C-alpha cells in the first residue's frame, strides 16, 4: 500500500518533533543527574537547545536544491547524534576535565540539526498545500509530538527503558523515517544509494547501542553519585569513587558511602576512643579493614602506641589513602607513619595464621551485605580474634545501624557474646549514615571504661559516651541467631532489614 505523500511527510513531522523534544529532555535529565542543581541544568539546556534550533532554522535558507535528499541526510545525522549523545555523555563524564563543553556542544549540534528539519519539511511541502493550511498542519503535528514526548518521557521511557535506551530508541525512529523516505522517493532523489547505505549503517549502529546499553551503563555507573566524581578506579575487589561538592568529600566503595569528610570524625572517634581509652598502656594495635587510615589517625593520637598493623584486602584503597593529596590530608598522613605497617591480604586468613597479640583491635569491615563479608562477622572469626587479644586488651567492631537493622546489629553483639566476649554495645549519630552501631568486646569478665577522653577530640567526651551506651525505647536489645559460617544468619538479617528500609 502506498501512503499518501502528504500523510507520510506530516507523520515525519510528528516523529521528528517527538524525537527532538526527547533528546532535549534526555540532555536536561542527564545534566542534572551528573552535575546536580537541576533547575540551572534544565534551564540552560533548554535555552541552548532552543537557541541552536534557531541557528538551524537560519541555516535552512542555504539549502536550495535536493531538499528531500538533504532532509533525509539531516534525519540520519539527528538519529546518530541524538541516539548516541547520552552514551557519549555517560562515558566521558568522569574522564574529561571540561565535561560541560562537551555537553553543550552535543546539545547545540542536536538543536541545530533538529532546527533544520521543520523549515526543510515545510519547503518540501510548500507546493502540496496552501500556505495557511501548511503552517497549521505542520505546527499542529509538531506540538502534538512535543506533548507526546513530554508525557511519555517521565512516565514510560525513563522508568522502563532508561536514558540510554530511550536515546537509541528515538534515534532508531529518526533513522526509520529517513529510510522510509528513501524508498518512497527513490526515483526523485540523487545519491539514493549513498543515502540508503547511511540509513542502514545508522540503524545497525543504533540497534547495537540499544542492545549493549546495559553493559555501557554498568561500565559508567555515574548515575549513582549526587556529586562530582573527582577520582574513580576499579580495583580487583571493588569500585572506588571519590566525589566532591562545596562542603565535603565522599568516598564510595561499590556505590556504598564509606564516609563523608564533613562528619567522618564522629564515626572514627566513636569507633576508636571508647575502647582504646580503656585499655591500660596500649602499645600494639591491630586494625582490620579501615584502609582509609582514618581509624589509624585516631589511634596515632595516643603517643604510647608503638606499633599499628593495618590489614586491608584492597591495595588500591591503602595506596590511594597514602598518596592522594586530599585523602592524605584527611587522615593526616596516618598511613605514612613509621609506626604503621600496612598488609594487603584477606583478614580472616591473616588472623588465622597470626601469632602476635595486640592490646587493641579495631574492626572496620564493610557492612555484611554479602556472604564473602559475612564470614568476617562469624563466631569462628571471633574465636580466632580472641586469641589475638593480649591480656587486658579489647576489640571494637563496627556493626551497621541498630536503628535500620536491629536484628543485624544485635546478631553481631550476640555472636560476640557466644564466643565468650564481654560486650558493650553503643551507638553514635553520624549524619551521613544515621544512627550507627559499634560493639566493644573484651575477653575479660568485666570491662572498665575510662570516661576521661583526650581533650583534642571534636565529638567524644565522657557525658557523650554515657549517652551513646543508652539504647532508647525503640531500639532495645534483642535475641537473634548466632552468626556462623554454616548459617550466615547475619547476611540474611542485614539483607532483609536494609532492603525494607530502602524500599
Amino acid at each position: 500500500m502506498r501512503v499518501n505523500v502528504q500523510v507520510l511527510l506530516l507523520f515525519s513531522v510528528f516523529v521528528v518533533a517527538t524525537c527532538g523534544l526527547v533528546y532535549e529532555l534526555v540532555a536536561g535529565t542527564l545534566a542534572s543527574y551528573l552535575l546536580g542543581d537541576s533547575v540551572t541544568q534544565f534551564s540552560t539546556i533548554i535555552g541552548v537547545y532552543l537557541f541552536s534550533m534557531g541557528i538551524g532554522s537560519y541555516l535552512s535558507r542555504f539549502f536550495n536544491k535536493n531538499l528531500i535528499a538533504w532532509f533525509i541526510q539531516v534525519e540520519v545525522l539527528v538519529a546518530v547524534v541524538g541516539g548516541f549523545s547520552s552514551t557519549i555523555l555517560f562515558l566521558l563524564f568522569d574522564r574529561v576535565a571540561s565535561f560541560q563543553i562537551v555537553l553543550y556542544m552535543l546539545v547545540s549540534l542536536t538543536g541545530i540539526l533538529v532546527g533544520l528539519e521543520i523549515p526543510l519539511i515545510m519547503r518540501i511541502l510548500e507546493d502540496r498545500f496552501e500556505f495557511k493550511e501548511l503552517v497549521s498542519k505542520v505546527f499542529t503535528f509538531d506540538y502534538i509530538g512535543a506533548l507526546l514526548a513530554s508525557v511519555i518521557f517521565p512516565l514510560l521511557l525513563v522508568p522502563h527503558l532508561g536514558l540510554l535506551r530511550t536515546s537509541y530508541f528515538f534515534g532508531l525512529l529518526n533513522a526509520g523515517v529517513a529510510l522510509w523516505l528513501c524508498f518512497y522517493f527513490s526515483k526523485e532523489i540523487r545519491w539514493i544509494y549513498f543515502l540508503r547505505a547511511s540509513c542502514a549503517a545508522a540503524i545497525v549502529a543504533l540497534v547495537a547501542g540499544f542492545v549493549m546499553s546495559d553493559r555501557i551503563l554498568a561500565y559508567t555507573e555515574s548515575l549513582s553519585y549526587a556529586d562530582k566524581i573527582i577520582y574513580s578506579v576499579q580495583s580487583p575487589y571493588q569500585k572506588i569513587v571519590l566525589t566532591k561538592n562545596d562542603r565535603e568529600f565522599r568516598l564510595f566503595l561499590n556505590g556504598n558511602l564509606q564516609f563523608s569528610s564533613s562528619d567522618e570524625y564522629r564515626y572514627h572517634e566513636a569507633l576508636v576512643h571508647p575502647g582504646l581509652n580503656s585499655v591500660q598502656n596500649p602499645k600494639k594495635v591491630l586494625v582490620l579493614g579501615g584502609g582509609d587510615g582514618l581509624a589509624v589517625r585516631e589511634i596515632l593520637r595516643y603517643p604510647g602506641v608503638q606499633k599499628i598493623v593495618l590489614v586491608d584486602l584492597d591495595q588500591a584503597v591503602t595506596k590511594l589513602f597514602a598518596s592522594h593529596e586530599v585523602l592524605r590530608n584527611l587522615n593526616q598522613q596516618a598511613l605514612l607513619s613509621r609506626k604503621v605497617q600496612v598488609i594487603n591480604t584477606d583478614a580472616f586468613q591473616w588472623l588465622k595464621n597470626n601469632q602476635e597479640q595486640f592490646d587493641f583491635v579495631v574492626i572496620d569491615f564493610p557492612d555484611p551485605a554479602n556472604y564473602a563479608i559475612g564470614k568476617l562477622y562469624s563466631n569462628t572469626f571471633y574465636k580466632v580474634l580472641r586469641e589475638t587479644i593480649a591480656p587486658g586488651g579489647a576489640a571494637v567492631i563496627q556493626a551497621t545501624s541498630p536503628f535500620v537493622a536491629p536484628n543485624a546489629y544485635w546478631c553481631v553483639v550476640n555472636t560476640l557474646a557466644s564466643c565468650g566476649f564481654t560486650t558493650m554495645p553503643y551507638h553514635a549519630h553520624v549524619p551521613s549514615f544515621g544512627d550507627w552501631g559499634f560493639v566493644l568486646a573484651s575477653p575479660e569478665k568485666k570491662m572498665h571504661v575510662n570516661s576521661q577522653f583526650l581533650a583534642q577530640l571534636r565529638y567524644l567526651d565522657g557525658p557523650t559516651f554515657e549517652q551513646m551506651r543508652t539504647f532508647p525505647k525503640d531500639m532495645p536489645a534483642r535475641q537473634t541467631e548466632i552468626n556462623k559460617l554454616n548459617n550466615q544468619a547475619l547476611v540474611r538479617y542485614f539483607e532483609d532489614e536494609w532492603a525494607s528500609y530502602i524500599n
Partner: protein
Amino acid sequence: MLRTGLKTVPTKTEEVEVVVIGGGVSGLSAARWLTQNSGAKVCLLELEDRTGGNSQSGQNAVSAFPWGAHYLPLPNNTNTELLKFLEEVQVITGYDAAGLPIYNEYHLCFDPEERLFINGYWQEGLVPNWSVPKPDLEQIDKFQALMEEMKEAKGEDGRFAFDIPLDKSSADATFRDLDKLTMQEWLYQQKLDSPYLRWYVEYCCLDDFGGTIEQVSAWAGIHYFAARKAQAANSDAHRVLTWPQGNHWLAERLRAQACPDIRTGSLVYNMEIQGKQVLIDYLDLATDQPTRLMAKKCVVATPHFVRERLLAKIPKEAGKQNSKAFTYAPWVVANLTLKQVPGGKGTPLSWDNVIYGSRSLGYVNAQQQSVKGFPEKQVITFYYPVADSSPTSRQAVFTRKQEDWAEVVLQELEKAHPSIRKEVEQLDVWVWGHGMIKPTPGFIWGEDREKAATPINGNIVFAHSDLSGISIFEEAFYQGIKAANQILKT
C-alpha cells in the same frame, strides 16, 4: 593383565597376619579397625598410586579439589563408630549438655549451601519452587511429608524402617517389599507425577546411586530421604561436612590411623588357599617384582567385579556369585579453574550449584570451605553420572576423548552460565568406569548381596560398599569395620 591372568609364581615370600586388598574407604576402615583393636601385623595392598578409592582429590595453584566423593552428611547419632572416628580427627570437637555432637565449624558446609538454576533464576535450596506451578508445589509438599513419616517410621522389630548403615534397618516386609519396586513405580502408586518433583527425586537418585528413578529401587530411593536423622549441637540437621579435597580428606585420616604397611602400586593377580593360610601373589608395578604374601586372614576390600577375578582359583567362590546383579554407574567428573564463576540472578555462588533439567548434577565450589572472602580465581567440580550403563554406553564413555567430554561439560554449564567459556583457564576430566554400585530393584534385600558378604573358610572376609548396595562413605566405613570384626572374632 588380570583378565588374561599372570602365571608367575613368586620366589619372594613374606608372612603377615592379615592382608587387606584394596585401599579405598572400606579397606582403610578395615585396616584402621584391625590396627586399633589388635596387635596384628597388617599389610594393605592398593593397585593405584594413592589410597582413597573413589575419594580422590587433586590440587592446583588455586585450590585443592575433589575427583570423586566429596561430602559426608551429618551422621546419625546412633552411628557411634563413625562419630568416634570423627571425634578422633577433630571433626567433632565435643558434645553439648544434651549429648549432641558439636561439629568443627570449619568443616560444616559454609553457607550458602545449595542453589538451583530454574526458570532463569538461582533459587536457594534444591527443592524446586521458583515459578513452579501450585499443583506441583503441592505434590512436592506431599512427597516431603511422606518422607518425614518414613524418617520416623519403625518396623515391628522396633528398628527404623530406614537407617544407616542400612543393615540396621527394619526387616519388616512392609518396608523391605519396597525394594521390589522401582522408585518410579512407587511415585506413580502415590499419584506423584509432577515433572518438577520427578526431576528432584531423580536428581537425588543420580546423586547417591548414579541411577535414574526407573533404575533404582524404591527402598533405596526412599532411603536417600528417610535414613538420615542426624542432630547436631551447632548445625541444622541437613548440613553436610565437606573439605576442599572432598572425602579424600577423610580417607587420608583413615589411612593415618591404619596400619603403617601400605603398599600402593601393587597388583594382586592370584589368591589361593593353602592349609590354614591364604596366599596372595602381587606384582609391585614400579619394580615388576612379584611377591607372595602368606597370610592367616585376608580382607578383600575391592569392588565386586575385581573380586571375581582375584578369587578365580578359590573353589568355594567359583560359580557361586551372581555377578550380573552388581551393576555400576559410570561417572564423569571435571574440574574447571575459572577466572570467576559468572554471576547470575538470585542466590550467589553456593557450595552445590545445580541446573534444573540438566542430566548433570551441576557443580560444587571447591573453595567453599575457605575463609577467604574474595578468591582471585575459582575451581569448580562438575559431576555427570552416566545413567545409561549398557555395555555400549559404557564403551562410549571410555572411547570419548578428553576434548569431547570437555565439550559436554561446557554445554551443560552454559545452560546456567552462557558466558562460561571465556572464564575457563583449565578443564580436566576424570572418567570413572565403575563409579558406584546401583541399587537396582531386588538387590539390597536380595540373596546375591547376602551371598557376596559371606566369608570363605573363615579366613577370607569381604568389605566394600558394593556389599551394602549403596556407595556412600558411611556404608564403606561400616563394611570395613564389619569385616575386621569377623576376623577378630575367629
